[in-house]
């Protein structure tokens, strides 16, 4: 009885790590790092996380978690509520829809997939915020943010791959 209970608990805890890591990345994204110019072009870490888990193990990143992570980011970062929520839902749905082209493929394929998906996400966010504020937002910073995200992506992908091998291989 007891060992079963503990192993169950262990399993549950492991299964929650993708969501936990994504929430952590939301918080990390708004840390005041005091690196000149970084605040405005901070890489889209939660977006990468949602993309990666949707590709590798969508069962560990259910759709309601994607939505809640988005709402958390909306709330903390001061953008109109629902913007990141909707953006992440669309990203998630797109990845699941095209998953057979991505799952289990080489890293380069997954990276290229991210360049496309992230571009879509940034454009959707831009349209949503521009229309909610009824103004034109300078796209410069957003373009930089996108490019930096592409550069940081391999690092996070590598980390998540290690994480998956270490903790999630048998769940």
């Amino acid at each position, binding site marked *: 009885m007891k060992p079963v209970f503990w192993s169950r608990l262990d399993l549950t805890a492991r299964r929650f790590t993708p969501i936990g890591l994504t929430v952590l990345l939301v*918080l*990390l*994204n*708004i*840390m*005041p*790092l*005091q*690196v*000149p*110019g*970084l*605040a*405005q*072009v*901070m890489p*889209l870490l939660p977006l990468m996380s949602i993309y990666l888990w949707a590709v590798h193990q969508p069962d560990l990143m259910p*759709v*309601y978690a994607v*939505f809640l992570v*988005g*709402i*958390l980011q*909306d*709330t*903390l*970062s*001061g*953008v*109109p*509520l*629902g*913007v990141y*929520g*909707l953006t992440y*839902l*669309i990203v*998630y*749905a797109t990845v699941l829809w095209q998953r057979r082209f991505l799952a289990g493929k080489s890293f380069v394929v997954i990276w290229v997939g991210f360049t496309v998906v992230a571009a879509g996400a940034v454009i959707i*966010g831009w349209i*949503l*915020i521009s229309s*909610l*504020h009824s*103004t034109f*937002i*300078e796209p*410069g*910073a*957003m373009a*930089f*943010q996108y490019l930096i995200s592409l550069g940081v992506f391999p690092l996070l992908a590598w980390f998540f791959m290690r994480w998956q091998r270490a903790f999630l291989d048998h769940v």
Partner: protein
Amino acid sequence: MKERSRFTHRVSAPIRGLGHRFAFLALVVAAFALMLVGKADVAMMERFRTQVTDAVAPILDIMSRPVATANEVVAEVRVLGVIAAENRSLRLDKERLLHWQVIARKLEAENKALRAQLNYTPAPEASYVTARVIADTGGAFAHSLLLNVGVQPGIAKGQAVVTGDGLVGRIAGVGDRSTRILLITDLNSRIPVLIETTRTRAILAGNNTNRLRLIHLPPGSSVSPGDRVVTSGHGGAFPVGLPVGLVESVSDAGISVKPFVTRDRLEYVRVLDYGLKGIIDGSHPTGETMEGGKAQP
């Protein structure tokens, strides 16, 4: 066992797929609903935002400490390298400032004497609360900060937030453990300002970049690069004369202002309390439209 699980899978997969699709659609609708409610009921959304921020603030506070320490260490090491040069320039500064001190003393005495003659009522002295920045909401979509102080005397919506360099922004929301600052560079920020030398009034508008735009100048007014821009105190939200930035360029496309405060260097900020109750007051209905960013000039 294997057979059974395969069978269960074959039956349950489409049902689950349908369930997922329904959940997805419901959440998409929920996201749109949130956007609409956010537009319609700004006050409620702000309350919700404050509650969530309050819940997360302790975590952010702890997380941001190692980062701050690391930055301090880097800064210390960097300072060591240039200590001799800095010393030299500080000596020069000291001489220059001593000269200014003499002038300031003289002016102060003169000012006092003149005020006594005119029965002048001095502007209220500001008290302030110093707070630590625990989050800088990254991204190009919104420019705001979170502070590690909550509701207490001296912290209220609409108050000016400054550093030694100049104006940072204003308080957009106060919770029990956290305070949200709308930076002057945010899309929703509109600040009544003056050109310091000519006393021309204008509005300084943020646009989510690190430059500000000067708008609503009276016709025929002249502005040139290098002019200092300070708060005008109109609307009663801010005190008069807080330094904001320098006019950087004047062209047909608009007047661009470079703020004195750079967002990356913010670690501690001061919240000023002048006891002003201006038009930016949470309880006032017109104050709410101000919050929504549609500030009428």
